[in-house]
C-alpha cells in the first residue's frame, strides 16, 4: 500500500496577513546563513573588538570612581594627557565617543566581510533556482520580499554592530555607577544605533541590488569586493597622490642652500644660516600641517571610497570630530593642527558622503525594482 494512502487531513487554522511575511523571509535567510562555518567564525571574531570596547568603558568607569582596581593599570595609560587622567569624568563623553568610533570603524570592516559572505546569495540564488514563484505565488508583495531579504543583512550586521554597542553601553554604565552618564552619553548610544542601521541598510540594499544582477553569486561577490576594496584603494590612492603633491611642493621650497657646511669648521655665519634654515623648515612644517588641515575640509577624494563615506557619516553621527577637537585643546598651539590632522581623518562635509550613500541607495532601489519585477520576466 503506498504511503500516501495514510490520507489527507484538512487544515482549518488561521492565516496571518502579509504584514509579517518579511519576517519569515528574514528568519529563514538567517537560519540558512548561520549554517555556514566561515560566517559563524567571523561573527565570533568580530566580537573581539566588542570585548575590548566593553573593557575600555568599564575601565573608564572605574577610573572615574578612582577605584584601586585600576591603579596598576595607570602605568599603561601614559599616552593619555595627564589632565585627562586627573579629571576623567570631564572627558568622559570624548573618551566614550572615541572608543565607540574606533570600535565602529573596526566593525565596519567586519561588516563588509559579513555582507560578502551573506549577501551575494540572497537574490541571485532565487534567480538561479527559479525560486521567485515560490514567493510571489503566495500572499506577499515585492516589497515584503525585499524587506525580508534586507532583514537578513540587518540582523547579521545588528549582531556585530548594534548589539555590542548596547551591551558595552550598559556595562560601562554599571561600572561607572553614576547616573549622570546617561545624560552625558545617551546621544552616543542613539548615534551608534543609527549608524549601525545606516551601515546595514546601505550595504544591505547595495548587495541586494548586486545580487539581483546575476544568477551567479560568485560574480556578485566579486562586484561587492570591487565596491568595497577597489573603491577604498582608489580613494586612498587619490588622497595619497594629492598629499604627496603638496608635500613635494613644500620640500622643494625647503632645499638647503648650496653653501651649507655641516662640518665642525662651519663659520658663525654659516651656523646662523643653518639655524635660520631649520627654523624656516620648522615653520614650513607647521604651515604645511595647518594647510593640510584646511585642505582636508574640502578634500573630495575619499568620496571615491564606499567605506570612507560610511565612516564619514558615522563620525558626524557620533560627534567624533568634536571629541578630538576638545582633546586637541590640551595640545600645545603649534602641534594642535598636526594632532587633529593625525586623528580626525577626512574633514570634508559629511553631507557629501550622505549624498553619495543616498545616491547609491536610490540606485540600488531602482535596480531591484527593475530586476525583480514579479513573474513577468521569468521563463
Amino acid at each position, binding site marked *: 500500500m*503506498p*504511503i*500516501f494512502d*495514510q*490520507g*489527507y*487531513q*484538512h*487544515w*482549518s*487554522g488561521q*492565516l*496571518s*496577513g*502579509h504584514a509579517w*511575511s518579511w519576517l*519569515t*523571509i528574514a528568519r*529563514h535567510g538567517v537560519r*540558512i546563513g548561520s*549554517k555556514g562555518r566561515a560566517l559563524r567564525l567571523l561573527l565570533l571574531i568580530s566580537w573581539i573588538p566588542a570585548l575590548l570596547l566593553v573593557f575600555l568603558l568599564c575601565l573608564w568607569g572605574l577610573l572615574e570612581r578612582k577605584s584601586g582596581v585600576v591603579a596598576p593599570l595607570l602605568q599603561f595609560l601614559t599616552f593619555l594627557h595627564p589632565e585627562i587622567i586627573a579629571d576623567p569624568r570631564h572627558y568622559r563623553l570624548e573618551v566614550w565617543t572615541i572608543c565607540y568610533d574606533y570600535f565602529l570603524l573596526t566593525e565596519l570592516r567586519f561588516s563588509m566581510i559579513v555582507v560578502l559572505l551573506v549577501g551575494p546569495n540572497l537574490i541571485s*540564488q*532565487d534567480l538561479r*533556482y*527559479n*525560486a*521567485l*514563484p*515560490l*514567493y*510571489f*505565488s*503566495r*500572499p*506577499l*508583495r515585492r516589497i515584503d520580499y525585499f524587506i525580508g531579504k534586507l532583514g537578513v543583512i540587518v540582523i547579521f550586521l545588528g549582531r556585530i554592530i548594534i548589539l555590542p554597542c548596547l551591551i558595552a553601553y550598559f556595562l560601562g554604565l554599571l561600572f561607572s555607577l553614576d547616573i549622570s552618564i546617561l545624560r552625558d552619553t545617551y546621544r552616543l548610544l542613539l548615534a551608534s544605533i543609527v549608524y549601525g542601521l545606516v551601515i546595514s541598510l546601505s550595504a544591505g540594499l547595495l548587495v541586494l541590488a548586486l545580487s539581483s544582477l546575476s544568477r551567479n553569486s560568485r560574480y556578485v561577490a566579486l562586484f561587492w569586493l570591487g565596491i568595497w576594496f577597489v573603491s577604498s584603494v582608489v580613494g586612498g590612492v587619490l588622497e595619497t597622490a594629492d598629499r604627496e603633491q603638496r608635500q613635494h611642493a613644500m620640500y622643494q621650497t625647503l632645499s638647503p642652500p648650496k653653501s651649507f657646511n655641516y662640518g665642525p669648521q662651519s663659520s658663525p655665519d654659516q651656523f646662523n644660516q643653518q639655524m635660520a634654515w631649520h627654523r624656516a623648515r620648522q615653520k614650513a612644517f607647521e604651515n604645511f600641517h595647518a594647510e593640510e588641515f584646511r585642505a582636508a575640509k574640502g578634500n573630495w577624494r575619499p568620496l571615491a571610497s564606499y567605506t570612507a563615506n560610511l565612516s564619514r557619516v558615522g563620525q558626524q553621527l557620533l560627534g567624533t570630530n568634536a571629541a578630538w577637537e576638545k582633546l586637541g585643546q590640551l595640545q600645545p598651539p603649534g602641534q594642535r593642527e598636526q594632532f587633529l590632522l593625525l586623528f580626525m581623518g577626512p574633514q570634508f562635509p559629511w553631507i557629501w558622503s550622505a549624498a553619495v550613500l543616498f545616491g547609491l541607495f536610490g540606485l540600488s532601489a531602482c535596480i531591484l525594482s527593475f530586476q525583480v519585477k*514579479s*513573474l*513577468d520576466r*521569468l*521563463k
Partner: protein
Amino acid sequence: MLFQFEGVTKKYGAVTALDNLSVAVPTGAIGLLGPNGSGKTTMIRALLGLIPIDKGSGEILGMDFNRQQLDIRRVVGFAPENECLFPRVEGVEFVAYAGELVGMNAKDALQRSHEVLDYVGLGEARYRKVESYSTGMKQRLKLASAIIHDPKLLILDEPTNGMDPAGRDEILELTRDLAHNKGMSLLFSSHLLPDIETVCDYVVLLGGGKLLTEGSIQQLKQVHNRSFELRLKGDSTAFAQQLSNLGCTTELRDDLLLVQIPDSHSSQMLWEVAAQQQQQIRYLRPQRSTLEEVFLKAVEKT
C-alpha cells in the same frame, strides 16, 4: 463557478499571449490543455494576479484577480512548472517555509509540513536536503508545498514534465485523489492528454491565446451513432469491400474495422452483410472520439 475570464487580453511586446479570452469554468478537476505557447501559463499567472493584464476582467473563487491578488493567493495553492527549489534546506523545512510564507505560524507550518509530506509519500525523505531528491520527489515536494495550507484550488503547471512512468503515475494518483476525494478544486495544466484524461473531468482547450473548446471530458468524447468499431472472426477484407460497395466508409486498423454508415442505412446492415458472407461479428460498439481527436480537431481549426 471556479473562475471566469471576460475579454482578457495579455500581450508580451508583439506577442499576444491571451487574446480577448472569455471562459467560465465550474468547480472540480479542470484540465488546461493546449500546445506549447497557447497561453496556459499566462492564464495561470493572470489567475493568481502575478501579471497585470492589458484588458478585460475576471474572477477566481468569487474574487477579482485584478484587485484581490493577495486574498486569492491565500486560498490557492500553486506548483509551478520550474523546479524552484533552492538547496541547503531539508524537505520538511522547505515545505514548512512555504506554509509560513502563506501566513501559517511556524509551529502549525512545521506540523502540517510533516502531514503533507507523509501524504505525498516523502515521509521517509523529509530530513534529506532537497538537492538530493530525484525529479519525481521534487515534483511531490512542490505538490506538498502547494497544499500545505489546504487551499480551495490547487493549480499545477505541467506537473508530470520530465518524470518516469512510475513517478508520473504517483503524481496523477495524488492529484486525482485530491480533486475527487478531498474536495479540492484542481486546475491541471498540461499538454499530455492521457494525464488530463486520468485526472480531470472538465477540460479547457487553448490555442494561440484563444479558447478553442471547453466542456466535460465525457461530452467531448461523444458517441458517434453512425460510426462503429467491429472485429470479425474471419477475413475482414471482403467484408470491408462489400460495405464500401454499399456506400460505407471503412478503415482497417490492426484487427479492428472502423465503419461509417451512410444516413440511408442503419447498423442493421452490418449484421445483414455478415450473414451474407457467413462471418461472425465478435465485437461491435459505437465509435467514441478520443481526447486526442478533439484536441487535434480544435487545433486544426486555428
